[in-house]
């Protein structure tokens, strides 16, 4: 069992299903069990893509305007 911090509230959770979890990792917890480790790189990558999506569109629109 490990202590998991839910944004200030600390509860115990069983780590049997995330054997490679280490202190400082983020985990998904369901009914007192950690079921998955949060892949922090993927989280950042996805969010960055979404946050910059409109800039990508501006670039593509720009190219379209520069036709012959």
């Amino acid at each position, binding site marked *: 069992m490990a202590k998991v911090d*839910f*944004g200030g509230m600390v*509860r115990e959770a*069983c780590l*049997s*299903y*995330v*054997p490679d979890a280490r202190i400082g990792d*983020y985990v*998904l917890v*369901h*009914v*007192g*069990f950690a*079921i*998955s480790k*949060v*892949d*922090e790189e*993927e*989280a950042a*990558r*996805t*969010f960055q893509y*979404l*946050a910059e*999506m*409109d800039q990508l*569109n501006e670039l593509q629109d720009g190219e379209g305007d520069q036709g012959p």
Partner: protein
Amino acid sequence: MKYLDEYRDKRVAQKIVDEIERTITQPWVLMEVCGGQTHSIVKYGLDRLLPEQVELVHGPGCPVCVTSLEMIDRAHAIARRPDVIFCSFGDMLRVPGSHSDLFKIKSEGGNVRVVYSPLDCLKIARDNPAKKVVFFAIGFETTAPANAMSVWQAREQGIRNFSVLVSHVLVPPAMIGILASPNNRVQAFLGPGHVCAIAGWTEYEPIVDQFKVPIVITGFEPIDILQGVLMCVRQLEHGRAELENGYTRAVQREGNPAAQKMIERVFVVCDRAWRGLGVIPQSGYGLSEEFRDYNAELIFDVGNIHALEPAICMSGEILKGLKKPLDCPAFGKQCSPENPLGATMVSAEGACAAYYNYGRHLVDIETLTAKG
């Protein structure tokens, strides 16, 4: 809180909605499977944020909603016994059976306890050796590893006064049932994020192939859901039907091997009755023969159960995405969270409860003004 707050960012939400509007050229019907996703959609008003051509219909992914009436009546019969301490997750407490609910049984003197984790039951069993502790083990694949662990540890620790009443349900057979239905309108799915964190997504690939529907594994925060919708719309607009992972920070194709191993040790796949949908073959987990000493269905003889559903309730059609809560004449009138008539109102994650709790029965959808 990191990995929560940014996935609720309003500006990013608007960017995704704008991209959906740029992409979409015709109406599409999408179903989100999980009750938690339904709850998020209604709470954050995502269905109102999205362009009109996107119709979100709500699926059967609320385990409390789909636990069969017969199983609930069985639970109540066991809970009434004076030698039993009946343990359950909190959201089962007010689920109405044919005659009563666990909360009423508790107020009438039944020993009913709410637990946060199934492991809490083991302590209760050790502390009460003269009583039989029974845990109501419901849920989808997400909860199965936790419930399995409680049985496994009970055996490891030599606890003899603990048993489980199992009513697990599985998502893929329910999806297939919906897609195979002659009235089906669903053209793409927001797949169940935490179910797939456990089970992976290999069982959904044949569904994509057979029915040619896009399935996008989706999380639960507003940004996750909007991203899932965008990925579905992009596929639909380009005539693609693929399985995509929109929840990469939590889900891999193979899922969680340690969790799957425990499930396989303790449970077997079986036919399961779904409230509102009927019996779906091979759609649930039951306790394996090896653990029969922990099987409350075998231990307690509660006689014949005759389950009685109210005729007015249309939750079966709501769970299949054919109707919405506002289509039901009883919604917000005879039927409310305080007095639920059927499956989709009983749990906070059910579609009817979600609509009610966020005031959808009070607001005229067209004009967004108060009704009455």
